[in-house]
């Protein structure tokens, strides 16, 4: 189980986040909603352990995965290596399996720069799920994609989540995305941002 307890986070003298507490069980998906600039990504960075400078505690599993807004790939390594180097414990066939899961089986030997943006995003998604994470963190994974591609990505993500069953925390500003994936929705509001109390179950 993941439990998040952020008492306060500030950048310099400006408080950004305050009193944010919630738990996520294995297999649950939590969507964090809120207007842009409110500190959703900051919260994710605290949860992921990328930014340790805040007051409070986050208990997180060791086996985590993250999907950023940008694909954030190793552009100088092949598509295959982009999974294999991150998950050295996987066998070659497991890596190929992860690639075919997102429809990139025939692109294994290309460089990421030779893929379309949609394909790069799918590779980033495959990298996230390949290690069977206990906690999956996604930061606006479907933003700035055209409607059709975004919908394909959403369907793919839904399928991968139900297959691997991680605890998932993801940030979005799109309520329909949240409604489709999440078992629980949290909304940030205010300055410094904190959670709205209303929680909706799917």
């Amino acid at each position, binding site marked *: 189980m993941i439990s998040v307890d952020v008492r306060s986070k500030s950048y310099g003298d400006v408080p950004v986040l305050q009193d944010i507490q919630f738990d996520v069980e294995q297999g649950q998906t939590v969507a964090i909603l809120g207007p842009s600039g409110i500190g959703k990504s900051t919260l994710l*960075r605290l949860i*992921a*352990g*990328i930014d340790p400078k805040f007051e409070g505690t986050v208990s997180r599993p*060791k086996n*985590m*995965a*993250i999907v*950023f807004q*940008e694909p*954030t790939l*190793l*552009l*100088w*390594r092949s598509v295959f*290596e982009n999974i294999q*180097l*991150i*998950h*050295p414990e996987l066998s070659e066939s497991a890596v190929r399996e992860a690639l075919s899961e997102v429809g990139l089986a025939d692109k294994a030997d*290309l*460089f990421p*720069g*030779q893929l379309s943006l949609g394909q790069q995003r799918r590779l980033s998604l495959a*990298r996230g799920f390949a*290690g069977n994470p206990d906690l999956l*963190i996604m930061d606006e994974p479907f933003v700035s994609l055209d409607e059709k591609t975004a919908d394909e990505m959403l369907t793919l993500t839904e399928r991968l989540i139900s297959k691997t069953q991680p605890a998932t925390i993801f940030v979005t500003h799109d309520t329909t995305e949240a409604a489709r994936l999440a078992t629980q929705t949290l909304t940030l509001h205010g300055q410094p941002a904190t959670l709205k109390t209303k929680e909706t179950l799917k």
Partner: protein
Amino acid sequence: MSVRAFSLLGLLGFWFLVAWIAADPMVLPMPQELFSPLWAELRSGELLFHLGRTLIRVIWAFTLSMSLGLALGLVMGLLPRVDRWLDPWLVVFLNLPALVLIVLCYLWIGLNETAAIIAVTLNKIPNVTTIIREGARSIDPNLKAMAQVFRMRKQSVLQHVILPQLAPFIAGAARSGIAVIWKIVLVVEFLGRSNGIGFQIHLYFQLFDVRLVLVYAMSFITVMLLVEWLILQPWEKRVRRWRTA
């Protein structure tokens, strides 16, 4: 290739022209007048011996300054706290004239091989460090975060995340490095060694033999051109493959 050949031929033509205008082989001999002294030096084995001595010093100084400069530049670029402490040192060493370092090394360590190589290495490290530090500062923070969340091993992060991003900076440092290093090696040999291209140039300078000064200088330039074409450029092409694919 053809452009490169033409460009070099142009340089040769320029030499012909100037030598023809000067019309004094004591000042600047015609290019073809270098063949017989070159052949003589090759046959006696002198040229290859001194070339080899210089090359070994260049390789030592290059390897040492690249690896130390790379490590130092990485640390300074990635850890701002260390950078604040070491930056003034870097500025001091960057502005220390090569000649001062060489003389001090010879005075303190003695007129030997160690002093020669240390002098050249110390001259080059600050340069490499500055370039690599710039590279380390420009490393993508998102990739760093990615590596951290996925708990990649340190060695793997260095090899697959950090160094590839530094590759253009390493290539730049290596290229400017090798050019500067061999020039400093020549000065070091000129001042305090009894062999090497620099020593030979010193010798023929005292004998006022322009032809042999040119023969020795040219032969090492040739070696450096070969290093550039046969080692540096192919390596760079390989690490840049992903950009052009």
